[in-house]
């Protein structure tokens, strides 16, 4: 589903114009990105929690050069599914 489709649907549900919905959407994503960049985690109820972590520098084997490489530290985003989402997803699994 594209962003436009999502915006259209949300705008209908919320009784807002699509432009307003887009403004909300963009600042929501922007805010979430900024939070993660600032090392702040957050939880979206019913969906899961996000946080960022520094993956430490480590040695790893590069098969192309057949040598060990030193991989520099990197900050990555982690997601943890919420227990409700887990239950819902697996419930659907059982029904099938």
């Amino acid at each position, binding site marked *: 589903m594209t962003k436009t489709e999502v915006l259209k649907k949300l705008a209908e549900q*919320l009784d807002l114009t699509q432009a307003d919905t887009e403004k909300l*959407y963009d600042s*929501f994503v922007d805010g979430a990105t900024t939070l993660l960049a600032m090392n702040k*985690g957050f939880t979206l109820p019913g969906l*899961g929690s996000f946080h960022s972590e520094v993956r430490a520098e480590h040695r790893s084997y590069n098969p192309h050069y057949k040598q060990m490489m030193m991989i520099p530290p990197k900050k990555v985003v982690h997601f943890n*599914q919420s227990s409700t989402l887990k239950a*819902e997803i697996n419930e659907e699994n059982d029904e099938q």
Partner: protein
Amino acid sequence: MSNKVTYAEIIEALSRTTGFSKQKSEAFAKALIAEVKAELQETGKASITNFGSFKVKEVAERQGQNPQTGEPITIPAHKRVTFTPYKALREEVNAKYAHLESELIGEKKGKPATKSGAASAIFEEEKLPDPDLETDDVVKEEPKSFKRKEHARGNNTGLIMVAVLVLVIVGLASAWFLLRTDDPAQTAMNASAETEASSQNEITAKQEPVSEKKASPQNPELAGQTSSETAKDGNIYQVKEDEWYWVISRNAYGKAHFWPLIFEANFNRDTHPDSLETGTLLKIPALSGTSDNLTAEDYARLASGAALVSSAYENFGKLDKAKEYARYADKWNRNSQ
């Protein structure tokens, strides 16, 4: 946890930045979450533009252990939702470390390094990266002369390790110049370069280690000097164990990606670019400019080198790499015009 932000705070911030009421903002967040969930249930995939995508993944049954009692249990097959951040988010989050790159350690699994001391020292340094010290002042210093750089020496901790290498090469080069030329200006310049390098060497002991990434951009002038002088020697280089073109190229020119020059000077398209025998004697061609200030002629040669590498890769069926180097060739070709 202190570094967590509550949902209420997010909603409040959202309503502050957009000017909508908190109720509206919350309704939006709820609707968005509901949308993602519904899509996950339906298609097993969902995405939030510019943020990331969610995917339902099947997890196979596996054997586990009860962490309290240690007794083995079977974890049944189940589904879980995974999240993949999009590029915009990844880059924003990783901005602080973005300038770091993977480095070749020059050892096979578990085997000790066989490379030159300077190179391995650099890799050790990288264990203490300092991303906060950005390269701002570095950029400013680039165009300055040797003398100006000497004033800034105190801050330029990054120069030190490269300086050890440079000292050796500049020393050799100036000796060569003294023998070959009577030009006093040239001789003086080399002599000053040498003294400067030795002063750097003295500082080495006192300075704390810094990341190599910091070091290399700070030293373009020195590196350039090195490359032009060693290159003029028409160097013949003997390949050490586990060395690749780009390691040699970095030592010779200060830039790993100039290796097609070396390849072109020594081989043709029937040589596999990924194979390099230990002990091979390589001609290291000279640059007519410096590695940071290439002339059109250099660009043209880089382009033809990259084109050769590309066709060699194509010859050996590595089409991905062939394409990649064809792109390099294009780029350098444009630069040469």
